[in-house]
C-alpha cells in the first residue's frame, strides 16, 4: 500500500508524527469550542515562530550528533543588544539588526571553533556559552528595556491576512528559514556532509569530507538562527530582557527529538523538527483551553501528553518497520523505490 502511495519507508516516522499531530488537533477541536478556528491554528505559528527558527538550526547540530545549549541565552542576549542599541544608543534599526544578528553568529563561531580545534564535547562548550550569553545580557542591563521604535513596532504588529485570520511577519521569516534549512540539508554538499558526520564522524573524515569546517559552520549557523530567533522574539516581546527565553534550549531540543531526529546523529529532517515544535504548541494550547488545571496539574498534564505522544509514535514506527522488513522480500529487492531524500518535505 505504501508503495502505491509512492512513499518511502524512510519517511514513515515523520508521517506517523504528522498523523499524530493531526489526531491531537482533532481531539482538541472536538473537546473545546473555538479550538477549530483557523486563527488558533495560525497562532501555533505566530506563537512559536522563534522556536521554529531555533529548531532549524538545532536540527543541523543534532544531526551531526552534537548539541547546542546556548540558544536560549543567545535569544536573551540578542534581544538585549537590540533593545539597548535602539533605545539607549539610538541607532537606526538598519544598523541594529545586522549587529544583533552578528551576536549569536559570532558566539556560534566561537563555540564551533572550540569544539573542533580543541576537541571538547559540544555539550560543555555550549553550556559555557549558555552561561556566558546570559551573563553578558545581565551586564548590559538587568532590567528589561521596552522598545518603542517604529520599525520594531511595524514588525511586531503588522498582520498579514490569510482569509479571516492573520499571521505575523515573523511567521514568514520562520517559514523562509525552514525552506532554507530544507534546501541546505538536502540539496547542498554542506547538508549531506552534516548527515555523513552524524552517521559516522570517523568515516566522514576518512572519506575526505570537510568535517572540521562543516562542524564549525553548523554551530555558526545555529548561532545565527538563535540570533535571528532572538530578533523575532524581540519583535514578539518588543523588549529586551536578560531573563528572556530561559530554559528554551530544552524546548527546542525536545521539539527536534520529538520530530524524529536521533540525538546520536545522522537521522532526522528539518521538517520533522517543525512538526515537533507544532506538537508542543498544540499540547500547550490544549492545556490552556482546558483552563481548569492548577499549576501543578498543568505540569503533569504536559508530561502525560508528551508521554502519550512519544509512546504512540514509538509503537507505530516500530510496527511499520516490522511490516516493512517483512514486506521487503515480497517486493524485489532490486526494484528501486523513489529516490531517497529528494522530496525532502
Amino acid at each position, binding site marked *: 500500500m505504501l508503495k502505491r502511495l509512492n512513499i518511502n519507508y524512510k519517511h514513515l516516522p515523520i508521517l506517523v508524527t504528522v498523523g499524530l499531530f493531526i489526531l491531537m488537533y482533532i481531539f482538541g477541536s472536538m473537546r*473545546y*469550542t*473555538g*479550538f477549530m*478556528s483557523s*486563527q*488558533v491554528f495560525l*497562532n501555533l505559528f*505566530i*506563537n512559536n515562530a522563534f522556536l521554529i527558527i531555533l529548531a532549524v538550526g538545532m536540527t543541523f547540530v543534532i544531526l551531526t550528533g552534537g548539541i547546542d545549549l546556548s540558544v536560549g541565552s543567545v535569544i536573551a542576549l540578542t534581544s538585549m543588544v537590540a533593545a539597548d542599541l535602539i533605545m539607549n544608543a539610538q541607532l537606526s534599526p538598519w544598523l541594529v539588526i545586522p549587529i544583533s544578528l552578528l551576536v549569536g553568529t559570532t558566539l556560534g563561531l566561537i563555540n564551533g571553533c572550540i569544539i573542533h580545534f580543541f576537541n571538547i564535547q559540544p555539550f560543555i562548550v555550549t*553550556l559555557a556559552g*549558555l*552561561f556566558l550569553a*546570559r551573563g553578558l545580557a*545581565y551586564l548590559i542591563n*538587568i*532590567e*528589561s*528595556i*521596552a*522598545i*518603542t521604535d517604529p520599525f520594531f513596532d511595524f514588525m*511586531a*504588529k503588522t498582520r498579514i491576512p490569510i482569509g479571516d485570520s492573520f499571521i505575523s511577519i515573523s511567521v514568514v521569516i520562520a517559514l523562509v528559514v525552514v525552506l532554507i534549512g530544507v534546501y541546505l540539508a538536502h540539496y547542498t554538499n554542506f547538508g549531506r556532509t552534516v548527515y555523513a558526520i552524524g552517521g559516522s564522524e570517523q568515516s566522514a573524515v576518512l572519506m575526505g569530507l570537510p568535517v572540521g569546517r562543516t562542524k564549525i559552520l553548523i554551530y555558526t549557523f545555529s548561532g545565527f538562527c538563535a540570533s535571528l530567533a532572538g530578533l523575532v*522574539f524581540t519583535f*514578539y*516581546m*518588543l*523588549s529586551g*530582557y*536578560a*531573563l*528572556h*527565553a*530561559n*530554559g528554551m534550549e530544552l524546548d527546542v531540543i525536545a521539539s527536534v527529538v520529538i520530530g524524529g531526529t536521533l540525538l546520536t546523529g545522522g537521522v532526522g529532517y528539518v521538517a520533522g523538527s517543525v512538526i515537533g515544535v507544532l506538537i508542543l504548541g498544540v499540547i*500547550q*494550547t490544549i*492545556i*490552556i*483551553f482546558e*483552563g*481548569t*488545571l*492548577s*499549576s*501543578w496539574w*498543568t*505540569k503533569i498534564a504536559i508530561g502525560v501528553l508528551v508521554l502519550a505522544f512519544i509512546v504512540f509514535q514509538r509503537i507505530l514506527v516500530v510496527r511499520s518497520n516490522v511490516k516493512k522488513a517483512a514486506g521487503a522480500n515480497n517486493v524485489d529487492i532490486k526494484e528501486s523505490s523513489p529516490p531517497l531524500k529528494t522530496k525532502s518535505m
Partner: protein
Amino acid sequence: GGESEKSSGENGGSDSTETDSGGSDSSGDKGGDSEKLVIGFSQVGAESEWRTANTKSMKAAIEDAGHELKFSDAQQKQENQIKAIRSFIAQKVDAIVFSPVVETGFETVLQEAKDAGIPVFLSDRAVDIEDDSLWATFLGSDFVEEGRKAARWMVEEYKDEEGPINIVELQGTVGSAPAIDRKEGFEEVISEYPEKFKIIKSQTGEFTRSKGKEVMEAFLKSDGENIDVLYSHNDDMAIGAIQAIEEYGLKPAEDIKIIGVDAVRGAFEAMADGKMNVTVECNPLTGPQMVELIEAHLAGEKIEKRVSVEEGIYTMDQAEELLPTRKY
C-alpha cells in the same frame, strides 16, 4: 547551573487583616451581578507560596461570584503568558486578568485583546507600555515602596546607635522586578545616611530557602561577626538565612537583625520564636477585589487606572498575636 526562573517573586499588597478592602478602588456595588462572566486568568506560575496563595484567592473569588474561570499557568515564562492571552482571545472570554511575568513585551498581544474588545486587568505587577488604553486597571503593590519601608524601619531601629552599620543583602532572582525594585527602594533610603549604613555584601539567593541559606553561610564565613543587619528580598530566603546564622553560632534577630519582605506565615512563626525582626507585607489575597473591579468595569463604571493597596509592616512583637490569622 542556570538561573531560577522566578522573574516575579512576590508582591501584591493591601492590608492583610482586611483582605478585600482595596485602597481607592471604586467598585461600589456589584453591577447587578446578573450575568455569568467568563474570566481568563493567566498566572505567572507557582514558584512560591505567595504565588500559590494569590492563585487560590483569585480562583475562589471568581468562582464564589458565580463566574467561569479559565486558568492558565505560564510556568514563569512570558511567551507562555502571551500564548495564554491569545487563546483567551480565541475563546472569546469576557475579561482577562493577568500577572505579567515582566513589565515589558505585552504590547502586541494587548492590542489584539483590545481589538477583540476584551478588557485586560493587571494583577500585582504593572506593565511598561505608553498606551494606557491597552488595559483597564492595575491592582497591585509597589515594590520600591516595600524596599523603602524596610529601610525606614531599619533607620528607626538604629537611630540611637553609631555607625557604621553593616548590612548584607539577599537579592531575589537577578533581573526580576521585585529584586530590582526592592533593592532600589532600600538603597534610596539608606543613601541619605552614607556614613552610617553600608551594604557590605549583596548576592542573589534566587528567592529560595536553600539558596538563602547557602549564600548566608558564605557571608558569615567571610564577614562573620561584622554583619549587623540582613535585608532579604523575601521571607523564604530570610528563613534559610536564619538557619545558617544559628548553625554558625550567632543569634538571629539579636546578633544580626533580620528584615524580610512578604509577611508569609513562616516569617510570623520565626518572629514569634524571636528569630526575625520584621517583615514588610505584601498581600496576595487580592481575588475578591479584582472581581469587584471586573464587574464594575463591565457594568460600565469608570475605574481608576491604578488601584494600589496599602502595605503593612509587621514586627516581632505583633507576630504572636497575628500568627493564627495568617492565611498563607
